[in-house]
Structures are given as structure tokens and as C-alpha cells.
């Protein structure tokens, strides 16, 4: 734990209030205080639910995310094109397969990000995620055995390590 829970909750409150201000766009005293009151209410609620921990408020991965997300969007675009080609070809050349494999993430958050990134790229879906590893449903062979998966694994590991 690099950050204490109080700092985490305070960070979340700041984030929410900034969002609230941007969304409302009207700045009168009453509305500002109403917004502050709702932020405090939500903060009390989530603290009681013990949500703002390292997983619930992962501020430490935000810098890494700024590099990861653009890469992910490009990957998603590439696999979108591949799946679109499969859908449009008249013979529908799909070869669905289910495979198990291990990720190298150390934290639950890392596994969560990896599993969701896999699902987000069409052509592969995480159907199961537990202590033994990932179970992936792949639409075609190529969607699976590309080097992208190893690359994604490496990048997610770096993301969770960059705290």
C-alpha cells in the first residue's frame, strides 16, 4: 500500500467533483454545495462498502494506462478488421476453439485488465478466469496464435508493475 485509504478516498472525491462540475456547467452556490453534498454521500457509501482499495481506486496504473489504451485501440481495430473479413467472406471460414493458458499477471487487477482486453478484441473472448488461468474462446486460429496475445500479456504485466 503506497497510498493510505484516506488519500484514496480524497482522490476519488476530487475526481467525482471535477466530473460533476464539468457535467453540470452551472456554477451557483446552491448547485455547487448540492454537488459537494452528493460527493460526500457517495464517498461515505463506498467507504462503508470498502471499495476504495488498490483495486477499487487504482490510481497507480493511470500513467501506464495512458500508454496502454492507445495501443489497445489499435489492436482492437486490427482484430475488428480480421473479424469483419471473416463475417463478410461467403463461406464463413470460422474455426472456433477453446483453449486454456496462463497469464503472467501477479495481481487480480492485472488479470482483470488482461481478461477484459482479450474480450475487447473481437475474435477472442475470455469465458473463464480463475486461479488456474484463462480459458479463451477464439473465433479463428489466427485470432489466437498471433503474437498479439504474448505482446498483450507483456504490456499488461508492465502496466500493473508500473505502480
Amino acid at each position: 500500500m503506497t497510498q493510505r485509504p484516506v488519500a484514496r478516498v480524497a482522490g476519488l472525491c476530487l475526481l467525482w467533483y471535477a466530473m460533476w462540475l464539468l457535467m453540470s456547467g452551472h456554477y451557483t452556490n446552491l448547485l455547487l454545495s448540492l454537488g459537494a453534498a452528493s460527493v460526500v454521500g457517495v464517498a461515505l457509501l463506498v467507504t462503508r462498502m470498502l471499495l476504495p482499495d488498490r483495486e477499487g481506486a487504482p490510481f497507480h496504473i493511470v500513467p501506464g494506462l495512458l500508454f496502454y489504451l492507445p495501443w489497445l485501440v489499435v489492436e482492437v481495430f486490427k482484430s475488428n478488421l480480421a473479424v469483419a473479413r471473416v463475417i463478410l467472406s461467403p463461406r464463413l471460414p470460422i474455426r472456433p476453439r477453446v483453449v486454456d493458458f496462463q497469464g503472467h499477471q501477479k495481481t487480480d487487477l492485472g488479470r482483470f485488465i488482461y481478461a477484459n482486453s482479450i474480450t475487447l478484441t473481437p475474435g477472442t473472448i475470455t469465458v473463464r478466469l480463475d486461479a488456474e488461468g484463462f480459458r479463451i474462446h477464439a473465433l479463428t486460429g489466427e485470432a489466437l496464435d498471433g503474437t498479439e496475445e504474448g505482446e498483450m500479456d507483456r504490456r499488461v504485466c508492465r502496466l500493473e508493475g508500473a505502480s
Partner: protein
Amino acid sequence: MEMVLDYLSAALLLLGSFFVVIGGIGVLRMPDVFTRMHAAGLTDTMGSFFILTGLMLQAGISGVTLRLIMILGFLWFTSPVATHALAKAALHGKVEPIEHEDEEGH
């Protein structure tokens, strides 16, 4: 500058429409629920990405763009979780994914 943005926005919307429609076709053509999820992923990821980015270019820097970014963020965060939950529930409900090795589907 205006015109460049307009054309760019139109191009993005066109791309988004392309992916959305292809995903729809895929959902109809694919043989079982797991393969259909891949096709639905097309509409949820790049379809929404390009359409919402195209609208962002039209909106300029404003609250509208902020909302569009939030919609995009919600879609991209929730869609894989929903897909995963669906796949897991389908497996749990004894739906076996078809596994072809050589013959074509359907």
C-alpha cells in the same frame, strides 16, 4: 479547418456504420452463441468508437464531447464484462461451444 473536420467526422461515421452493420450481419450469420458474441463485439468496440468519435469532432470542445467520451468509456468498460458474464452463464447453462477443426460452420 471546419471543412476538414466535417469530412473527417463523416469518414469516421462511415467507418463506424460499416462496423456496426458488419457486426449485425455477423450476429445473424454465426452458428452459435459464442461465435455471435465475437460479431456483437464488433459493434460494441469499433462501431461505437468510430461513431462517437465522429460525433465528438462535430461537437468540438464542449460538455457534449465530455459526455460522448464518458459514453464511450462506459461502453468500452462494460461491454467486455457483459460479454464475459454472458459466456460464463452460457457455459454454466450447458451450452457447449461448437469446435470445428476442418469443416465450415453452419
